[in-house]
C-alpha cells in the first residue's frame, strides 16, 4: 500500500517547523469505526490518528472514549480519540481524530488487508476451479506429489559425494535414465486419468483444466527447456525451428539435474520421437527418388523448419547425386531459413560436399491463396504443417501444392495420427493444439483427380504420411 506522505497530521510540536511526519494510509473502504453501536467509514489513518466520515457534526475537542476499529467484520482494536477538527464534506463531515494514550496499529491493519486479499484471491481461484472433475484434481495432486518426491530425490543425489568424475557421470546418467522413465510413465498415466475424468467435450473447461494443471505442476515441468519453450512460444507460434532442433538434438540438456530428467522424460514421449522419425522417413523418400531417377530433381519442403531431412540426405548421397538435386526450403520464419542454411552448409563444408539450396521466405497464408507462381517440383513435402490446418484449409493446401508438381511428381503430406493417445498431455503440457487425422481423413481430404494415393507412417505409427503421386 502506498503511503501518502503529504500528511495533514497535527503538528505535534505546535510549531510550523518541518518535522518528520508519519505516513498516512488510505483505508480503501476496508476500515470502519464503531462508536456507540454506530458504524462510520474511516477515510485514512496513520500512527497517531485517523480521518473519519460522519453524518452528524461532532464538536472539536470532544473525547470519544471507546472507538472500535473494524477491518471488514473483524475486530482490530479499541482506542480512545480526541476530535481535533471537523470539516463539511459532500456527504457529511470529515472528522480528524487524534488517538489518546496509544497508537493506531498500522502494521496490523496492513497485514490484515494483505491476508484478506490473499484469502479472497484463493476463494476466487477455488470458484474458478470448482467445476473441474474431482478425478482430474485427484490425478493432478498425485502427479504433483510424485514429481515433488522425484525432485527431492534428485536433489539428494546432487548433494552426494563421489570419489571420481567417472563414477559421478555414470551415476548421474543412470539417475536420469531411471527417473526420466518413471516421470514419463507417470505423466502419461496422469494424462490418461485426467482425460478420462471429463465426460463432456467443453473447450472452456479444458482451458481451465490446463491452466490449473500448469499452475500445480508447472514448476516441475518447466524445468525442461523443451517444455518451457513449447509452452511459452517465444517466436509466437508452436513448433518453431529451435524447438524442432531441440527435439532432433535430444541431448537432455537442462540447467538443473531434475530439469535434465524432465527433459529426457518429455523427449521420450511418442510425439517428439515421431518428429525425429519423420525426418528419417522423409530422407528415405528423397534418397529413393534420387536413386530411381537419373535426371535433375527439384524438391520443395513447405514449412521446412531446420530441414533435418536435408542434413541426413547430405550425409548419405554422393556428390554426383547431390549435383542433380535442388532443395527448395520454404518457411515464413526468416530465422528458421537462416538456421537451416547455416547448419546444412556447415555440414556440407565438413563433408567436403556442395549442396544447392534455395530459400523462400513466404507466408503460409499467402501461399495458400496465391500459390508459388510457375514453379514445378518433383517432390513437395510438408511434415509439420497440415496438423495446424482445419479440414477445409488442409484440402485447399493440398490442391495448391499439387498444382506445383511435375507430371510424375509426388506430394507428401505429414499429419499426426488420430490414434495418438497423448494429445491431452500435449495440450496440458505444451499448450500445443494439433489436428489429428486417421487414414480415412487423409483419404477424404487429399484425393486429387489423376493421382494415386498411399498412406504410410514412420516407425511408431504416430505420424502418418499421405503420398499423392501424379499418374504419368
Amino acid at each position, binding site marked *: 500500500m502506498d503511503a501518502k506522505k503529504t500528511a495533514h497530521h497535527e503538528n505535534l510540536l505546535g510549531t510550523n517547523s518541518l518535522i518528520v511526519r508519519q505516513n498516512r494510509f488510505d483505508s480503501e473502504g476496508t476500515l470502519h469505526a464503531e462508536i456507540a453501536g454506530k458504524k462510520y467509514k474511516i477515510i485514512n489513518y496513520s500512527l497517531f490518528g485517523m480521518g473519519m466520515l460522519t453524518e452528524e457534526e461532532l464538536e472539536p475537542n470532544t473525547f470519544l472514549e471507546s472507538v472500535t476499529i473494524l477491518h471488514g467484520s473483524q475486530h482490530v482494536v479499541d482506542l480512545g480519540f480526541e476530535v481535533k477538527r471537523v470539516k463539511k464534506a459532500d456527504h457529511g463531515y470529515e472528522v480528524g481524530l487524534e488517538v489518546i494514550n496509544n497508537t493506531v496499529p498500522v502494521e496490523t491493519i496492513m497485514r490484515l488487508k494483505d491476508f484478506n486479499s490473499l484469502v479472497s484471491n484463493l476463494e476466487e481461484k477455488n470458484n474458478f476451479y470448482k467445476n473441474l472433475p474431482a478425478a482430474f484434481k485427484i490425478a493432478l495432486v498425485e502427479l504433483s506429489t510424485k514429481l515433488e518426491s522425484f525432485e527431492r530425490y534428485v536433489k539428494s543425489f546432487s548433494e552426494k559425494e563421489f570419489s571420481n568424475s567417472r563414477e559421478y557421470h555414470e551415476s548421474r546418467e543412470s539417475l536420469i535414465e531411471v527417473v526420466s522413465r518413471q516421470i514419463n510413465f507417470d505423466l502419461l498415466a496422469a494424462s490418461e486419468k485426467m*482425460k*478420462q475424468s*471429463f*465426460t*463432456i*467435450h467443453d*473447450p472452456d473447461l479444458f482451458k481451465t483444466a490446463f491452466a490449473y494443471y500448469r499452475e500445480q505442476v508447472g514448476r516441475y515441468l518447466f524445468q525442461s527447456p523443451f517444455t518451457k519453450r513449447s509452452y*511459452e512460444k*517465444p*517466436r*509466437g*507460434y*508452436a513448433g518453431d525451428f529451435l524447438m524442432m532442433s531441440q527435439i532432433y538434438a535430444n541431448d537432455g540438456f537442462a540447467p538443473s539435474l531434475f530439469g535434465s530428467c524432465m527433459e529426457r522424460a518429455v523427449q521420450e514421449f511418442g510425439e517428439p520421437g515421431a518428429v525425429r522419425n519423420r525426418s528419417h522417413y522423409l530422407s528415405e523418400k528423397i534418397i529413393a527418388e534420387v536413386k530411381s531417377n537419373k535426371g535433375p530433381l527439384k524438391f520443395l519442403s513447405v514449412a521446412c523448419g531446420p530441414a533435418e531431412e536435408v542434413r541426413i540426405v547430405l550425409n548419405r548421397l554422393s556428390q554426383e547425386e547431390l549435383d542433380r538435386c535442388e532443395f527448395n526450403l520454404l518457411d515464413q520464419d526468416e530465422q528458421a531459413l537462416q538456421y537451416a542454411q547455416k547448419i546444412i552448409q556447415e555440414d556440407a563444408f565438413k563433408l567436403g560436399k556442395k549442396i544447392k539450396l534455395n530459400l523462400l521466405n513466404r*507466408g*503460409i*497464408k*499467402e501461399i*495458400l*491463396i*496465391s500459390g508459388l507462381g510457375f514453379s514445378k517440383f518433383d517432390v513437395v513435402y510438408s511434415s509439420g504443417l497440415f496438423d*495446424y*490446418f*482445419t*479440414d*477445409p*484449409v488442409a484440402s*485447399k493446401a493440398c490442391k495448391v501444392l499439387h498444382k506445383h508438381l511435375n507430371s510424375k511428381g509426388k506430394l507428401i503430406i505429414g499429419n499426426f495420427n*488420430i490414434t495418438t493417445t497423448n*494429445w491431452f498431455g500435449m*495440450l496440458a503440457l505444451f499448450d500445443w*493444439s*494439433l*489436428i*489429428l487425422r486417421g487414414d480415412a481423413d487423409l483419404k477424404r481430404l487429399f484425393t486429387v483427380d489423376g493421382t494415386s494415393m498411399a498412406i504410410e507412417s514412420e516407425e511408431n505409427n504416430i505420424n502418418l504420411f499421405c503420398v499423392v503421386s501424379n499418374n504419368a
Partner: protein
Amino acid sequence: MISIDTLAKENSKNLKSFVITLGSYYTVSLYFLFSIVDYVFYPDFFTEFLVVRALVVATVITIGHLLKQPDEKSATLTQFICSIPFVACAASIDYMIFRINDPFTSYWAGLAIVIAALSVGFTFSWRFYLTNILILVVPFAAMSLSHFLGNQDINTFMNLIFLLSITTVCVTGRWFYQKLSLSEYNNRKQLAEEVVSRNKIIEIKTQETVRLNALSKQFSPQIVQSIQAGKISLSSKIHKSEICAIFVDIKDSTIKFSTLDRDNLQRIIAVYMEDVMSIFLKYDITIDKFLGDGVMGFTNDPVAQSDYLERAILAAIEIKSRISLKQELYSSLWGSPFEVRIGLSSGVASVGFYGSDLHVKSYTAIGKVINLASRVNGIAPPNEIAITGDILTKIKEKNEQYLRDYRLTELGHHDLKGFEKEKIDLFSIDKLESPAQLTDDENCPHGHGPLMIDQLNNGIYAMKCRYCDYVLDESLPKLKDVG
C-alpha cells in the same frame, strides 16, 4: 574580428600618433642638437635661436599633449592642430634665415626637411597638405625674391628653385603614396567586410544546423530536408491544425520498472524507443512528446498529408507487428511477454513551437485530441490498437473500400476521463495481411463476403469471416473416448 574605421577617422588617428611621436623626448632632444650648429656657425645668434627652438619644442609638446586628450575631435580640427607643429618649425626656420640674412645659409634645407616630413606618412587631406606646403614655402619664397631683387644674387633664387623642386618631388611622391595607401586601406576594408560577412554566415548556418539537428529528432529526414529547402515553413506562430494523434506505451511498465534489472531496463527501453520512433519517422509522423515510456506523435503537421489518418493506422500496425516479431528479445529482457497499447484519435489541435527562446523549444501539439489519444490508449487491450470511431468515419467518407482490408472490433462504451459528456465510439483495429488471404470459394453464411485464411488463438489455421465470429469447420482435437 577586424574592425575598420572610416578613412577620415583612420587618417586622423594616424596623424595624431605621428604628431604625438614628434613631441616625444628623443625627437625633441634631436632638435636641440641643432643648437650646436647655431653655436658653431652663428654664435651671436645662439641664445636667440635657442629661445626660438625652445618655443618650437614647447609648441610641439603642447600640441602632443592636446592630441593625447581622449575627447573626440573632428577630422578638420585634428588636421588643423596637427598642422601647427609643422608651421611652427617652418616659421622658426624662416625667422632664423631672416635674422642671419645670408643667402648662402643652408638653413633653408631645414624647410626642405619639414616639407619632406610633411609629405611622408602624415595623412593630411589634400586640402590641408597643400595649405601647409603653401604656408611653409611662401615666407621663404617672399624672402628669397626680395633678396634676389635686392642683391641680384642668383644663388638666393637657386635656393628657392631647389626648394620648389623638392616640394614638387615631395608632392608627387605623396600623390603616389596616397594612392597606395588608399588601395591598401580599401583592401583592408574589403577583407574586414568579408570576415564580418563570413562570421554572420557561419553564425546563421550554425544556428540553422543546431535547429535542424533538433528538428531531426522530431521529424523524418524528408521533412527536415523540406524545411531546409524552404518548402515547409515552421512558422513561429502557433496555428490550428487537423491532426491524427497516436500514443504508444508499454503495459504494466510502472510495476516492471521498479522490479526489473537496471541493465535490462536500459536495453529494453532503448530497443523499444528505437522501434517506435523509427516507425514514426518512416510514416512522417511528428514525434510530439515522451510521457514516461509513452510516445506521442501526430500526423498532418507540419506537412499536410492527404492520407494522414491512414499513416497513423499503418504506423500503429507496424509497431504492433515489430514488437511481435522481436518478442523473443523483448520478453527475454522484460522477463515476461512484452506488450504495448496503442491509441489513436483525431481532431483539431494548436500546433507550433512551444517553449522559451532562451532554453528549449519543441514543435508540439496541444489540444483535446492529444488527451483523447492518451485515454484511448488506456482502453486498448494489450497488444491491440484502439481507435476512435470518427477516424473510421472519415476514412470511409474518402474511400469506402479502404477498411475492407482491416479487422475491426467494437470495444464498447468506456468512460474516458475528461470526456465523460461525449459519446465516443471505440474500436480495435488490425490489418489483414493482404487481400490475398481471401479465399475465392468460401463465403460467410451471414453475407459478409469471402472468408479469409487466418490463425485462431490456438495457432490453428482456419477459414473465418473478417467481420463476424464465423469459422468454417473449426476442428479441435476430438475426445474420442468421451461422450
